[in-house]
């Protein structure tokens, strides 16, 4: 398994380590509920070094990204982050990634860990085919990433940087040193809380980790593992690539229509529009268990005895104290408040379709 630069720190903290897409990652340090609540109530610190970063630079960098990504990036300003989808020719989602516009003609793509190499090869092959004048560089191995998430993130991180974090808006970033090391500070995340994604060189990311732990000790900051990351993102109604979607699923079937701009050309658009015209059969929706039990990935969903779909993510929500999930269901049964049942082992357990997100922070 591959190890992040912070691996030894996780071991020293007695974390439970799991294999996440070939990476040895901490799933929890104490337990998921503690780390989840620390993040919602104060701050959680996550090792996200496993995610990928790809630099795209050159006069035609934007032309390439406009062609490979579904989102219209024409109006993106330097310092802005945009979530987008990378599709295959059939309109299926290869990855959902964020685009950082560093400067005119200079971008950083932040990819999920598992599809990173696939992303790289796909984007590279399109760049070669079209002969776009720009360079691509996979900087994942030299770039570290920490997510600091939770309502106290700003006051904790402010102790370590001169950047004025108060003025940094959501889905915007600045390039500013953290404890003296060059870094990108982005106000964004995957938890539904205020917070930051911090990028800095892999060889010093451990220093920033240590200083954040110290700076946040009084505020209740805790290191948090992938277990809490999963329950936090699910409460916030966010999808996990490879679990809630894959290359056979299009953005129209999941809550990603908003990142598709049909007014521009992009790879996969023809197939996507054909899918749209022939009618979308299934839809990813939120579900909440009304009977006793927890829906889990792979459990079947029924309506009046008829199988209508499958659970893609499911857990016990620590914030709401109930079982929630995401499920792919037949469009016909996808309206909120539709009563369904989930087959949990031998029991047909009542549940209902609900609107996403499950949890929204109070501003």
């Amino acid at each position, binding site marked *: 398994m591959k190890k992040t630069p912070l691996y030894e720190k996780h071991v020293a903290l007695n974390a439970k380590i799991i294999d996440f897409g070939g990476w040895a990652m901490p799933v929890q340090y104490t337990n998921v509920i503690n780390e989840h609540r620390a993040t919602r109530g104060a701050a959680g610190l996550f090792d996200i070094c496993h995610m990928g970063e790809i630099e795209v630079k050159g006069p035609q960098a934007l032309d390439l990204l406009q062609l490979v990504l579904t989102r219209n990036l024409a109006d993106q300003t330097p310092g802005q982050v945009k979530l987008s989808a990378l599709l295959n020719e059939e309109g299926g989602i290869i990855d959902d990634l964020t685009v950082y516009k560093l400067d005119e003609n200079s971008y950083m793509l932040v990819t999920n860990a598992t599809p990173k190499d696939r992303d790289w090869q796909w984007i590279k092959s399109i760049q070669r085919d079209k002969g776009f004048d720009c360079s691509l560089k996979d900087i994942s191995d030299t770039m570290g990433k920490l997510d600091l998430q939770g309502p106290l993130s700003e006051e904790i991180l402010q102790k370590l940087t001169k950047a004025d974090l108060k003025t940094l808006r959501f889905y915007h970033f600045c390039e500013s040193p953290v404890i003296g090391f060059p870094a990108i500070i982005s106000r964004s995340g995957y938890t539904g809380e205020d917070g930051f994604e911090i990028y800095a060189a892999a060889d010093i990311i451990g220093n920033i980790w240590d200083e954040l732990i110290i700076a946040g000790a009084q505020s209740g900051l805790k290191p948090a593992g992938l277990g809490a990351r*999963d329950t936090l993102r699910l409460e916030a109604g966010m999808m996990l690539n490879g679990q809630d979607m894959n290359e056979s699923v299009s953005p129209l079937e999941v809550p990603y229509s908003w990142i598709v701009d049909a007014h521009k050309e992009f790879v996969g658009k023809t197939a996507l529009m054909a899918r749209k015209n022939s009618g979308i059969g299934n839809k990813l929706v939120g579900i909440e268990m009304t009977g006793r039990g927890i829906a889990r990935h792979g459990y079947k969903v029924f309506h009046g005895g008829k199988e209508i779909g499958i659970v893609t993510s499911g857990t016990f929500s620590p914030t709401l104290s109930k079982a929630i999930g995401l499920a792919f269901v037949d469009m016909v049964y996808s309206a909120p408040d539709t009563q369904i049942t989930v087959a949990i082992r031998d029991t047909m357990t009542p549940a209902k379709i609900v609107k996403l997100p499950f949890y929204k922070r109070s501003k």
Partner: protein
Amino acid sequence: MSKPNPTDRLYSRDHEWVKDNGDGTAIIGITDYAQEMLTDIVFVELPEIGKVVAKSEPVAVVESVKSVSDVYAPVSGEVIDVNKKLENTPELINQDAFGEGWLVKMRLSDAGELKMLLSAADYEQMLKEEKH
């Protein structure tokens, strides 16, 4: 660190404990080591009273936030009581695995099976070996 394993009961290799009541019935639960491994228990599925289970068959399901784990019957018999408190307070297993967090009471169909279980000392020895 796990709590000490009480010497008034027997243990299975799957981390269940069996407390023989001496009247042909026994109380069954999971060990403190098991709850520590599972961490935050958020749901317990208990069998119906009257269910007959064979040794090594699933008798209950314990779920943490992340995982779903079967609890295997360490002995054969009929379920004659279940710990209903676990329906609303599954965390009792985390708090008191050897006491308030018990799972089921069974009428043993073959008391001889008890001889195949481990003593507290043997169970602790097994845990030590597992860790290496």
